[in-house]
């Protein structure tokens, strides 16, 4: 009878113990799996989100996030100069500011107003049409709103909203501007409850009291034959006073500043869960061996060597851990959905950003870590069993 089959029989002789131990391993394994997903999940998701938008570099006036005050002046000329570089395909300026929808019988509703150029992926129209430039002074300013804003105000294409912009830095209360809602759009970096709308830059400036010729950031797409790093370098050489980040650099910065807490906590919790699993399996097996001393002594007496007894125990541990580990995967996925939902309720987290992202490496690492913990957990029980004094154990069993 092979060690594997023997271990299986040993596990099955106490089904309650086996089921509970496997359940324990499954739950703790699920937590371990989730911590492995968390360790890289948000970065992978963020990188994916940046890539989906379709731009591979961002240009700003400072190293801080947009809307923190400093803007790039002479925006039109700056955009033209950057776009003239041979490495660059397209440059999209963006203005972002807070505004409010003025309502007749309610408190004004705050929202984020984006000013940019349509048709380049900064937002995606899902209903109606996209914003367009006013051809004459009498033409209405157009705006697209996100789903949240549309449902909050019961808006649909064709309706009009009255907007007052706050225009950071301009402390005076500005006059309101009428916008015609032409479409409903999704904005990739919107959080679950965020209210966002987009207009042309000209209309944005109009809401701010006149032409500003400023930009909070430029979205840059490099030419297909050029790497993002080459594009970044070219822009930096053209304008050394500006801050240029490729997507990778943004992700790297995000990892160092915004994400590092989750990386730390996932490492700490993964270590704790592994230690927990190791200790518990080791205790379970040790207690089991203690209960089977006489049986083990008898096996040794009839000729089972130390290695065989050790192999039986390692397989027993391995079976518990591997069955539990496999069950841990679907359990972990369900747990990840729950934890993701909790963490995403933090303000400012884009709705399409996830903290837990399944990757093959995480699954493999999960298997490897659990297997190692299982093998190590059998260490003490194996020591107990292999060092068992056969004769005195048999003698004590008779006397006892």
């Amino acid at each position, binding site marked *: 009878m092979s060690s594997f089959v023997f271990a299986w029989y040993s596990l099955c002789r106490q089904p309650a113990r086996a089921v509970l131990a496997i359940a324990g391993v499954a739950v703790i394994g699920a937590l371990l799996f989730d911590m492995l997903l968390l360790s890289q999940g948000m970065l992978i998701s963020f990188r994916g989100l940046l890539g989906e938008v379709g731009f591979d570099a961002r240009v700003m006036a400072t190293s801080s996030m947009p809307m923190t*005050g*400093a803007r790039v002046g002479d925006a039109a000329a700056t955009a033209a100069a950057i776009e003239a570089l041979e490495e660059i395909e397209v440059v999209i300026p963006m203005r972002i500011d807070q505004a409010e929808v003025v309502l007749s019988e309610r408190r004004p509703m705050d929202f984020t107003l984006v000013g940019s150029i349509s048709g380049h992926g900064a937002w995606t129209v899902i209903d109606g049409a996209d914003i367009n430039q006013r051809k004459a002074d009498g033409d209405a300013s157009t705006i697209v709103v996100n789903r949240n804003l549309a449902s909050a105000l019961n808006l649909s294409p064709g309706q009009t909203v009255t907007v007052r912009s706050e225009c950071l830095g*301009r*402390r005076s209360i500005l006059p309101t501007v009428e916008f015609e809602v032409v479409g409903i759009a999704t904005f990739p970096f919107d959080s679950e409850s965020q209210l966002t709308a987009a207009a042309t830059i000209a209309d944005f400036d109009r809401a701010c009291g006149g032409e500003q010729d400023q930009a909070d950031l430029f979205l840059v797409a490099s030419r297909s034959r050029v790497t993002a790093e080459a594009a970044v370098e070219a822009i930096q050489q053209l304008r050394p006073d500006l801050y240029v980040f490729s997507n990778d650099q943004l992700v790297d910065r995000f990892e160092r500043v915004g994400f590092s*807490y989750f990386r730390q906590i996932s490492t700490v919790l993964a270590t704790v869960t592994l230690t927990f699993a190791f200790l518990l399996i080791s205790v379970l097996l040790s207690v089991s061996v203690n209960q089977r001393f006489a049986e083990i002594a008898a096996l040794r007496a009839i000729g089972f060597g130390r290695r065989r007894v050790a192999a039986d125990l390692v397989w027993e541990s391995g079976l518990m851990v591997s069955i539990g580990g496999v069950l841990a995967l679907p359990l972990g996925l369900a747990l990840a959905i729950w934890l993701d939902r909790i963490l995403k*309720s933090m303000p400012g987290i884009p709705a399409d950003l996830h903290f837990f992202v399944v990757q093959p490496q995480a699954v493999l690492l999960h298997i490897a870590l659990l297997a190692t913990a299982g093998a190590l957990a059998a260490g003490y029980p194996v020591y107990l069993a292999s060092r068992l004094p056969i004769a005195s154990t048999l003698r004590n069993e008779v006397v006892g």
Partner: protein
Amino acid sequence: MRGAIVGLTLIIGLIGSGILATSGPQPASPADAVGAAGVPSSVPDVLVSRQLLESQDLRIGDVVDLSPDPTAIGARSFQIVGVYEPVPDPTRFSAQRLEARLHLPDMLDLIADPDDPQATEAVDAINVALRNPAEETTFSRAIVRRVPGVSVRSTTRTDRGNPFIVLEQFHLAIAIVTILASTAFLLALMVMQSDERREMAGTLRLIGLKKSRVLTQVLIEGLIIATSGAAFGIVLALVSEEGFNRFFQWRYDTALVFVRISPTVAWQCVAMSVPLGIVASVVASWTLLRREVLALIRR
């Protein structure tokens, strides 16, 4: 005395809490401000955060140029009169706290748009301490009614989306999962222990002891084990609390306390673990005792 053009775009009150612009020379927070106070000079004063002082290799007494523009347009000189430790902010603990504090008029002079006549009359926020904190809601409504366009936010009430609350929920979820796993293992161990005592339990029943009597013994044993285990767990948590805090405070260069075992938390843990241990012990033993006596003693 060193002068240096610090081409920083200091985030003066524009990221989250930002600078709490003061109207007086004293620091606006419980944080200590240490420095050469009362140095007579025509150059206005500035307090800098410890992190800023260290990162730019500054010293108290240095004169620095501050500008809100990346090209240093409109830079003005300030003398560093002190250094302070920023109040730890859980929502920004990983951000490097490169901050400075100026007198409000100095700050307005620095950042105000000369084209905007209202610029020197505007601030980002006004902190209000009520005589009676219970009147917070009434006060908020009154302000919103009287001053259109103003947003009033409570600093004591925490809404569901508060990052700190979210992290608390996250950690609670982790704790629940850990408890579930522990319960499974605990039950497994108790089942094994019960099985080991099968013969003893059978013998006791054979000589006439009732099930309840045997279970009472099990209950007492479970209570002792559970209480000892809970006490050990608390001690272990207290020991590791110090380790966690030291590590994260070093890692993020902050005074924020990350882990705190309060008496409430300790009592919650005891309240959960002791009954759990007792119940596991009793349940495992009950599955044994409900068998026939002879089945217990037969090998």
